[in-house]
């Protein structure tokens, strides 16, 4: 019997790096990381089985990502594409990210070419459909979305080796979407749920983002930001990491304004890099009563 050196296989395809990168750059998301590790292991074994002639058909790799806005669905999709590419389950590894607008046309005969054009661009890679439930409009049975759904389903089934489809959206609405389109549910092998971030994870994300931009929080500012997160979370339209990013952008704005206000001072690199509590406490979040 042929012997397989699993460690060598693992190192050869280089998914270890991608998984480590995932652990390093994505904060929290434990269940997601566990699932991705599982999928990566399965695919590694599948690859070996294929080489040994133990299996011939292509595994179904279509996935659905459910979770609230800003929980990292698009970022994880990019990583998945890279893992699939390294393992040889997609040939090119590009990610084509679309929403309803790019798939569904506006008049009769417009939808099919539009959907097919996107599919052709995604061939050999991953098609990421954000807010996929908008494809299906239950209140309008003549909606062209249905046509796009049918073409997608057909390609998902017949060209499994050419294309991996990832559907993403908010949990409850995706459930409804799958309920009314059972064809999708059965063609999707991996359902991954993205949990919301805890407060300390949001803080860690903020610090990671700031580090990438060469900023830092002073100790007082850090404490103010912890309060900011708690208050912001209670307010409507909170979208996890995306809200944090926007908050940081506004804080940078305020910091720049504060620095420019006094043109005569001599600034050190440290001054330019650090965000002070006043940059955070000026936010509307603090003035609004909870």
């Amino acid at each position: 019997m042929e012997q397989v050196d699993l460690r060598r296989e693992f190192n050869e395809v280089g998914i270890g790096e991608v998984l480590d990168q995932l652990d390093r750059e994505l904060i929290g998301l434990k269940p997601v990381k566990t699932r991705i590790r599982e999928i990566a292991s399965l695919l590694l074994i599948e690859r070996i089985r294929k080489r040994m002639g133990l299996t011939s058909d292509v595994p179904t790799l279509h996935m659905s990502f459910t979770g609230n806005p800003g929980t990292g669905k698009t970022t994880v999709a990019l990583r998945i594409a890279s893992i699939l590419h390294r393992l040889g389950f997609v040939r090119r590894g590009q990610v084509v990210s679309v929403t309803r607008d790019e798939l569904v046309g506006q008049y009769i005969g417009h939808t099919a070419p539009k959907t097919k054009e996107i599919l052709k661009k995604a061939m050999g890679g991953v098609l990421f459909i954000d807010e996929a439930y908008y494809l299906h409009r239950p209140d309008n049975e003549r909606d062209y979305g249905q046509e796009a759904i049918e073409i997608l389903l057909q390609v998902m089934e017949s060209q499994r080796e050419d294309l991996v489809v990832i559907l993403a959206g908010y949990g409850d609405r995706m459930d409804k979407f799958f309920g009314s389109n059972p064809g999708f549910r059965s063609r999707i092998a991996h359902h991954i749920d993205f949990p919301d971030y805890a407060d300390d994870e949001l803080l860690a994300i903020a610090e990671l983002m700031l580090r990438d931009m060469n900023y830092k929080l002073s100790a007082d500012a850090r404490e103010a930001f912890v309060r900011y997160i708690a208050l912001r979370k209670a307010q409507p339209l909170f979208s996890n990491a995306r809200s944090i990013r926007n908050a940081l952008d506004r804080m940078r704005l305020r910091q720049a304004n504060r620095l420019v206000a006094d043109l005569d001072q001599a600034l050190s690199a440290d001054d330019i890099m650090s965000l002070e509590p006043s940059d955070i406490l000026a936010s509307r979040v603090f003035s609004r009563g909870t």
Partner: protein
Amino acid sequence: MRVTQGCFSFLPDLTDEQISKQVQYCLANGWAVNIEFTDDPHPRNSFWEMWGLPMFDLRDAAGVLMELSECRKVYGDRYIRLSAFDSSHGWESVRLSFIVNRPADEPGFRLDRHEVAGRGIRYTTNSYAADRPEGQRYGGK
């Protein structure tokens, strides 16, 4: 008589796998691949009809092959060719073109001789297939 136009036409017909590799070569060079068809085999016929739009921004040949099989379903009794368009500055033209589908029976060409003033002779080639109206050549409906 086998029509020989474009690349590879003196070789046996390409298999789908070979077509796919050629298309991948085109895409790797950044060329946009188009599908065209006609039922007028005359070598001077430069008006081939396009199947859909030119396919820009593709990464993988599977997309082209998908369209090709659609086109074959509808126009499988005609000539179908792929052409690769290079949009880069200085080229802006077709870089590669080859036939990927041909009618089962290609009747070939007739040579017409016109006697003109002074017993001079002018020659014209006519395709036998083109004697019938468009769409009815090569055993189409």
